[in-house]
């Protein structure tokens, strides 16, 4: 009997850009998936050694621990401004900001819109889980109408609290934005599309084509008071109809001109 030669082929491994640290995220939280997708893209583009992450305030404030890249924590909402400073003095580096919905869509609206308006050659990953996670589940600008949170205990009231803010649609209107996409992390198929969008966003930056942003619809089982699977389903049934998926803007700027 001839011994069968055993060969091993690694089909899935931890990306180099992802550290070996255990994350602090709650069970079922999609931050981990978003981190992994970004890390895979960084590996594929071989840019780990020249990537600098701007970490936000919020649940992902510890994100520097989970990536093997240089990182700085920005004040709440100011990540695009900090990223601008980093990029303007070292244009050969890849700068990306990671922001939540409270960060990007509430306290940091001015910074994100103007970074896009300047066509700032940076990439922003925008995690939209319709709630403030770190502070314990308060209403976010992206909370759905009727959604119960700790600061909208009777549901988000359209008359007094307004409707959810569609940041990607808003940013897509801005001339300096080159690539704006909204994707979701609720299913394997959508996760693959999300990765593709993240890759395209980083490529836009590498090509010097201006501002790129990917919004990722994400779950927060803890603050939504749902089981992880239930939470993923809720993204599909409740969030996707309000925040339609797809590329909201994808252009190829010519002659160094960004925009319209």
């Amino acid at each position, binding site marked *: 009997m001839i011994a069968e030669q055993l060969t091993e082929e690694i089909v899935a491994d931890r990306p180099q850009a992802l550290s070996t640290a255990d994350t602090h995220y709650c069970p079922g939280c999609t931050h981990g998936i978003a981190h992994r997708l970004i890390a895979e893209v960084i590996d594929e583009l071989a840019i780990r*050694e020249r990537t600098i992450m701007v970490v936000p305030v919020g649940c992902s404030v510890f994100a520097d621990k989970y990536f093997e890249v240089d990182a700085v924590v*920005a004040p709440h909402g*100011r990540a695009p*401004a900090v990223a601008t*400073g980093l990029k303007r*003095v070292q244009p050969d580096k890849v700068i990306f900001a990671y922001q939540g919905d409270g960060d990007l869509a509430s306290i940091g609206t001015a*910074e994100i819109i*103007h970074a896009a308006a300047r066509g700032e050659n940076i990439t922003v990953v925008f995690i939209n889980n319709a709630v403030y996670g770190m502070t314990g589940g308060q209403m976010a600008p992206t909370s759905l109408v009727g959604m119960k949170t700790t600061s909208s205990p009777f549901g988000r009231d359209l008359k007094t609290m307004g409707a959810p803010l569609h940041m990607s649609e808003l940013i897509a209107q801005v001339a300096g934005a080159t690539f704006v996409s909204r994707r979701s992390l609720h299913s394997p198929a959508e996760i693959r599309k999300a990765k593709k969008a993240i890759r395209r966003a980083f490529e836009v930056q590498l090509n010097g084509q201006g501002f790129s942003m990917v919004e990722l619809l994400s779950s927060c089982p803890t603050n939504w008071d749902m089981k992880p699977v239930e939470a993923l389903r809720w993204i599909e049934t409740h969030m996707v109809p309000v925040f339609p998926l797809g590329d909201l803007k994808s252009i190829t700027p010519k002659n160094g001109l960004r925009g319209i």
Partner: protein
Amino acid sequence: MTKQLLKGNEAIAEAAVRAGVDAYFGYPITPQTELLEYMARRMPELGRAFVQAESELAAINMVYGAACAGKRAMTSSSSPGVSLMQEGLSYIAAAEVPIVLVDVMRGGPGLGNIAPSQADYFQMVKSAGHGDFKPLVLAPASVQEAVDMMALSFELAEKYRTIVTVLLDGVIGQMMEPAELPPMQPRRDTAPAWALTGASGRPKNGIIPFSLYAEELEVYNQRLQAKLARIAAAEVRFREYMLDDAELVLVGFGTSGRIALTAVKQARSLGIKAGLLRPITLWPFPERRLWQLADEARGFLVVEMNAGQMVEDVRLAVGGQAPVKFLGRMGGVVPMPDEILDAIQKLDKATRPRPVIGTIEGPVAPLRHPISVN
């Protein structure tokens, strides 16, 4: 080099350029806008970074980002704009990255006006943002001094990895006077080891200035305070005028220090032995020198363009050894030498030792120490 007639704000900008500033981020606000406008032309011409930010909030955070890359980064603003920058200043202080801020103070509170003022001494010296930290604060009294402070500011900021503020008022910012610019210095072409330049051939760098653990954050604070103590011990700067035999000591910074000097000279011509101490660093404050002077001086007169801010530090330094009087103008009004001279004369009269007159009953009780009142 020869002296040129230079406008304060523009001279400061060019001095920063010659000191090797890599990046400038700012927002228009009177009376500092010429600094931004000058940089808008000059920085791109030299291939350096310039962004007119959407707000002072954004400007200071752009400075934060550029400083994290190990580059020489600065901004400039005026009082209400600095209020908006305080969030970023606190983060920058915590991150211990070096930056330079030029604050051209105007009248307040609120929108106030665009006239020169010194009403933000407290804001910059005592509370530049939340948490325990202090920027190193330099106060120029002339265009030349402001020019000379720019290279020094970057050196000190980098030496201690701290915020250095050049705190002036609209008079210095707007005034034109002869000054000599320093020669152009080469820009630094290496990044410090802590800078965020990409983890190439080294472990990743992080500028992560927070800790959720109280004990850990206390240790961090102790280290920060130890650094501030080193600055306090080594970087006190001030100028003295006619203090050798002075019986009355005037204290004023920036423009009011300069006007007080005129009044001191007038007092001297009247035979009053007055002198001036002009703090150049507002933090660290020349408290030891003031304490020494208090040993001999009959009284102190603090002149400011505010309701009385630095005077508190003078009183702490003097420690009750002599009376400390205050003369302040507010809302953008600049004190005149005449009114300062008047205050000097009053102080002279109030603190002059009375001759002890013998009587049948014996000598009168010695003069009671005058109580200091505003």
